[in-house]
């Protein structure tokens, strides 16, 4: 039999090692972020005037320049463009994904299995494979230099990743639907009044992923947006000159702001939804 003091010592050792490991992993992941944040406040503007890893002087000049010196690099405009494209893609993409997942989960129709397999296979191909075709199509629709072209692509592509959402709907007992229908509810009412409230965590998850993809995408905007006033932040930042590192760092830091805000607002739905789901099971 182990003594109580031995057990306590063992637990303390275990806790210490666990925390040390966690701290180490946290440091490994956090250090690049910390470095980028500090670099964005570098007073020299250049990565090469650092003292060791960190800037030799600090100032907020890069952030000021980011929003005021817009003659060559119009960051506020790019930011607005990214926000518009990501928000619209998020709204329409979430709607389509949830509807697709719901249909696949709840309805039985001809070719359902074939359709599911096809979408699964299609989803395996990287999106840039169809770049040439996408470019040609967009030129025909006059969607070059047009944000709606990008929104269309992001929105149309979003439902292909419906599998996770379908899995969630599958976990909601169909007896609930049957009970509602017995009470006279239509399909639409079942979806709106029963499934949507129960699926809040999944909707939030879908919205977050639908927002972050267009928000950080580089390849498609680079392909379709030719004039600088239509560029998104990702394309714009990549065009910064060789001596503009601090501005690049400041722009990269600021780009995280909408995602953080979105996460803070939606996080509670993610958690409460999970709990609600657990209780209902």
């Amino acid at each position, binding site marked *: 039999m182990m003594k109580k003091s031995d057990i306590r010592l063992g637990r303390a050792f275990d806790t210490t090692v666990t925390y040390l490991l966690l701290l180490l992993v946290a440091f490994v992941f956090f250090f690049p972020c910390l470095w980028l944040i500090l670099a964005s406040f570098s007073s020299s503007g250049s990565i090469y005037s650092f003292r060791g890893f960190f800037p030799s002087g600090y100032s907020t000049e890069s952030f000021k320049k980011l929003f005021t010196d817009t003659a060559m690099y119009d960051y506020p405009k790019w930011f607005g463009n990214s926000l518009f494209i990501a928000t619209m893609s998020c709204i329409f993409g979430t709607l389509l994904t949830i509807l697709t997942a719901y249909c696949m989960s709840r309805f039985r129709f001809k070719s359902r299995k074939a359709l599911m397999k096809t979408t699964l296979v299609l989803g395996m191909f990287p999106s840039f494979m169809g770049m040439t075709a996408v470019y040609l199509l967009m030129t025909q629709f006059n969607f070059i230099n047009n944000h709606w072209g990008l929104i269309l692509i992001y929105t149309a592509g979003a439902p292909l990743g419906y599998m996770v959402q379908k899995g969630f709907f599958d976990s909601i007992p169909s007896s609930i639907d049957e009970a509602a229908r017995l009470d006279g509810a239509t399909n639409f009412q079942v979806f709106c009044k029963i499934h949507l409230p129960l699926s809040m965590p999944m909707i939030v998850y879908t919205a977050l992923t639908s927002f972050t993809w267009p928000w950080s995408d580089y390849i498609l905007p680079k392909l379709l947006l030719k004039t600088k006033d239509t560029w998104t932040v990702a394309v714009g930042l990549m065009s910064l000159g060789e*001596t503009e590192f601090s501005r690049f760092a400041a722009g990269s830091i600021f780009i995280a702001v909408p995602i953080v805000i979105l996460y803070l607002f939606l996080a509670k739905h993610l958690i409460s939804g999970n709990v609600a789901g657990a209780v209902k099971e």
Partner: protein
Amino acid sequence: MPRNISALIAHILVLAALLTTFGCMSLKRDDSEGQSKFNGELERNVTLRILENDTAKEKGYFKELLDAFNAAYAEYGIVAVDANMDQYTDLEQDGPYGYGPDVLYQANDALMKYTDGKHIQPIPVEQLDCYRQISEEAWNAYTVQVNGENYVFGVPVNIQGPLLYYRKDLLPENWETQWDRDKNGVPDMTEYWTELYAYSKEIREKSNGAKFGYMKSLFDTYFSSGFLFSYGGYVFGQGGTDTSDIGFSAGEARRGAHVLRQLASAMNQDCIDDTVTVNAYSMLGNGTYFATMTTPDVYTLFVDELAKEYMRTQDLSEADAYAKAEENLVAADIPKLPASGDLEDRDGETVDSVMMGGINGYAVSAYTKAPNAALAFVDFATSFEMISRRNELLGVAPARADVAEKVGGLSETINANLEAGHIAVMPSTRAVAQIWTPTQTFFSDLAKDPFRLPDEQKYLSDEALQKGLETVDEQIYSAIHTLN
């Protein structure tokens, strides 16, 4: 929704998808594209989209040019605007669909690759004001021979030839007595590579490796291949047109490779990749480097960084800092090389450096709806006044001889270098795209060599250097001709 309505919508969607697909498949070029459309009659009430480089925009030159042109052509309703695109926009990709600019300013190798697909059109250059003021060598960069006839596809604006940039205030105090053996009032380390090498080693030794003399990314073909050309190497034979004759190993080019290896030994490992290219502005500014080599168009970027450094460290006002930076930053002609190819040979014969260069210029898109107005813009932008102003604001070396003569100094030297064959203009052929990877791989390997362990060094003999260069030639040949 009733089933038949769903089916109808589904069929309409499928039909729309099919029509779009076939619509795209049947995209075809207008047969008249590429043919000369310059009839001398100015199109009225048109907007020209002009693609310029970022430095011209940043320094305000482009706005001046547009304002002046728009005022001059207001009576015709011709308006020139900034195409507002990336300066490296690919006309080949965007032009056919109507999204490219009408007039483009790019380097000759970038512009001339568009001739293959007839994306730019031949220009009646004899009609232009600048025609007689530009040297034959510069026009050659834009000339293509078809069925025995010459067609000119671009108008040279400025000559991009490398220059040596150094900090006058970092010269040793005793340079006039110790580093000016020919007593011509010019520091020897800016005149001869042998002296610059010796001075670089001295700086590095005295600073314990914290500071350097000459620093450059040696993997960069644009700047390093000149060392091979100075000893008889070349890109393609027949004046850059015969892509079956690749000459990086020709003549005594291995001597140039030996010089590069020696230069690397006086640098640090940053010379292996593009680190020095990116950090040279700051490092020359803060005094870590004494000198580097680059093109005239980035002069203002070096001045900006040096002025910032003076403002930070010496508490100078912006105006004083810029004045001091302009005084201390010197752009000089490329130093002479030792004929023996050995940088330790300080007393031997020297040869002139031949460096790779380019001619930046204007071209007119084949897709422009207003070719005559576009030509009028090119004529206006290459006029004596506008080229003089361009030189004044951007510090570039003008291709117009009259402007070069007026401003004198390096502009005149670069023009003279071009005429004397000391600038080997990048061949204006698509095949030039295949030279970069093999040469960069070799130069990178060569720059790495002095940092390897003694028994692992690869390029210690002439034979090894020659073999390395011949491999480069073979790789380029394979890249160009294997699938043709």
